[in-house]
């Protein structure tokens, strides 16, 4: 077991891990970050997406020990206080159905909007295309992401 330290949702956390522990398992089982979902186990589907140093990554194909000294944001961290405009937009659009892809999708969309606050429809599709959803046909998700920008503009 090795001790690692990292920032999780703004708070310094420690964990004891084996070199072969996967990040998804450590975050879910040892640190209670259950928003992260296991779905394919090989980086194909995006359900386990978290932000590592601000970038969307697949926690099912990262060794936990690699994140020593890094910064992690999960959906729990986004939801602690007031929801983000993106989360509100998903609620307004009733975007998700079964909801299992939602945490990963929201983390990917958060990264997308951080990088590009005014994405085109094509950019939304390209930016989120690594996150699979079997229910929605994607359109309600695209609409919600595009609508965030409009809402934020309205606020200004």
């Amino acid at each position, binding site marked *: 077991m090795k001790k690692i330290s990292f920032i999780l949702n703004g708070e310094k956390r420690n964990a004891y891990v084996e070199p*072969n522990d996967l990040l998804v398992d450590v975050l879910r089982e040892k640190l209670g970050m259950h928003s992260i979902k296991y779905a394919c186990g090989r980086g194909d589907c995006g359900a386990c997406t978290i932000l590592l140093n601000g970038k*969307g990554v697949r926690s099912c194909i*990262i060794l936990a020990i690699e994140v020593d000294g890094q910064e992690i944001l999960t959906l729990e961290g986004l939801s602690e206080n007031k929801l983000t405009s993106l989360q509100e937009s998903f609620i307004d659009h009733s975007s998700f159905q079964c909801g299992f892809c939602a945490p990963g999708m929201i983390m*990917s969309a958060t990264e997308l909007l951080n990088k590009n606050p005014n994405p085109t429809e094509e950019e939304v599709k390209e*930016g*989120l295309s690594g996150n699979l959803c079997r229910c929605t046909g994607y359109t309600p998700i695209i609409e919600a992401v595009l609508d965030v920008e409009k809402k934020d503009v309205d606020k200004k």
Partner: protein
Amino acid sequence: MAIVHEFEYFRPEKIEDVIKLLGEYKSKARLLAGGTDLVVRIKDELEFPEAVINIKEVEELRKLEFIEGKLHIGALVTFTDLIDSDIVREQFPFFWESVKTIASVGVRNRATLAGNICSAVPSLDSGPALLTYEADIVVMGKEGERVISALDWFLGPRKNALKESELVCEIIFSLPERKHGGSYVKLGRYKGEDLAQVGLGILALEGNEYRLAFCAVGPIPKRAKKLEALLNGKPLTDSLIEEAKKLIPEEISPITDVRATKEYRLHVAKVMLERGIKAAVERIDGNGPAYGEKLI
């Protein structure tokens, strides 16, 4: 699913320490950069390393620089870094076009070009660009540095020219001196992320020089020497393209698998050649479809 196999983990900060560890563990060591290939392979029990050496702390491997007409891509540069780089997009748009077809954001944020070429899979999307730009791969080992041409890099499926105890430090692309255009055409089963069933990269240089390379249609990504011999020195005409298409079956040796049949790969390779070479030539003068636009 948990990883069952156990290994030692190291996180050196200097290249010499990496080399030392490689010397110690030899074929039982694996370097970890993005991990998008390695971790899955350990999990699937296809690899059983005794040591996993995380090289992400080796700062000097992180550089992405354009110096004197040469693009230096450090071993830790990710596909996202490449796609987001203005220099890559503006100076090496054909390379940029190929890289954009690889995986999706969540993987590109981790996966590195160096890791990609070390995996040396037959369907390597970055392979054709590397081969046609004739990139150099700088590697370091106990004996010091050596430079391997991309043309000599691929030895077989998942086999590369790296010796035991060597690591890739950087990949260097030289900007061709002449005006040029390029294209990367990829056959996938749909528009979303897929492994190439045929990949064709074409670099067309002013003065009727053509460099072509395929991936996913043979054991390794490979330059299409027969096609180049036919095309070089000749202006691109419809009849020349037709002749070139006829040569395709001699140039590539695709197989049938779950992704596509051999017959379809051969068929589409011809279509890709026609569309790709036209686009590459048009792009020499800034015409033709924009880089990144799908040709098939």
